[in-house]
């Protein structure tokens, strides 16, 4: 898993790539928590661009939950551009009920 974070005007866009699984979830979670803190400090929503992600296991999903807990409602966390596998995983886990999911990073304003 690789991770990039960029400032995109009034929002932060995080782009993990590869897989989030039992080998990579700790790195993913560490980056994610740091990004949430940055977003809270900047009072900017955090968009997670999933387009480069092959898939994410429950470890990654639960890292998203920890990030949401970290944000304590102060900033929104949105998921954008999941591939078909990720979309299926979000639906099966019902995470699409916990996080807003949009097709396009640009829609995730």
């Amino acid at each position: 898993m690789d991770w990039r974070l960029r400032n995109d005007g009034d929002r932060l866009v995080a782009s993990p790539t590869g897989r989030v699984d039992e080998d990579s979830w700790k790195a993913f979670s560490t980056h994610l928590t740091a990004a949430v803190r940055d977003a809270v400090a900047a009072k900017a929503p955090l968009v997670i661009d999933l387009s480069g992600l092959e898939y994410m296991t429950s470890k990654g999903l639960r890292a998203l939950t920890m990030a949401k807990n970290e944000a304590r409602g102060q900033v929104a966390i949105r998921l954008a551009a999941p591939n078909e596998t990720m979309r299926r995983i979000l639906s099966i886990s019902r995470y699409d009920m916990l996080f807003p999911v949009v097709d396009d990073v640009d829609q995730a304003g």
Partner: protein
Amino acid sequence: MLVRFWGTRGSLPVAPHADVALAKVARALVAAGGRRFADEAEAAKFARAELDFATYGAFGGATPCVEIEADEDAFAICDMGSGLRDFGLSATRRCAEGHPRVYHFFLSHLHWDHIMGFPFFRPAYETGARIVIHTGHADAEAALRRQQEAISFPVPFDELKAHIEFIVHRPEESFEAAGMEVSLVRQSHARGSFGYRFDRPGKAVVYSTDAEHKPEDMDLEEDVEAFFANADLVICDTMYSLGEAVSLKQDLGHSSNVVAVDLCHSAGARRLALFHHEPSYSDADIQRMHEETLRYEEAVRGERPRLEVLCAYDGLEVSL
């Protein structure tokens, strides 16, 4: 080894209302499309081949009770949910054919859905039967005695004729019982629960129910994976979706299908049985959960061999 599921529902026994059977019959008749069958056996063959399990069958509504057949000298039973009544009747028949009347129970914990079958366990009323109750909870005997106090049940515990003993185990120490090497592990649940691993040379079964795998405890999951390592069958609490387990149902002490798949993948387990089904789920709901679990397993399998995912139902037998 043979694993027999006598009760697979979580929390509360359930039974279908009349309209559930009617809907199934109606669906089957529509699917048959006017076809004629010589007899019921032929119709049953058609039903199995052409209909889904939620239509021709049912997952059942008895609470947790799982038999592990490994040894000819003793029965081994995980939990005493309402499924225990049917196991007791089956065991009585098998004992009439010469099976020794020795019963080893392994209790995950003492919540009602896991002990409520014991007052209805016929062998407990038989002189000459020997019942050994293995538990991680020091107050297991108090829990079983209490549910047979006069306010709750007409026959007091002391009137049971079988020889009953309780053995409280510590998680660090494995032991021998019913021809198996048994180890237990503490799990996250209200007042704690215990998972059991049963090993025979070359075969292993894990019974892990009523266990929550919380986001903030993910660091500790390597221990769970080690406990599940290379098991031929892992029976897992998959009561809620992960989304529910981390939000509305947080801290209720249960797990999800996707976490169970991940633990089994990491552990190199061969088969997973989805277990402790939510009592409000219909057969179609449970079947959908099973289908979704198969899709999830495929999505996150990576380069691993396929994990076989079964959905436990009352009456399922799995031979290993």
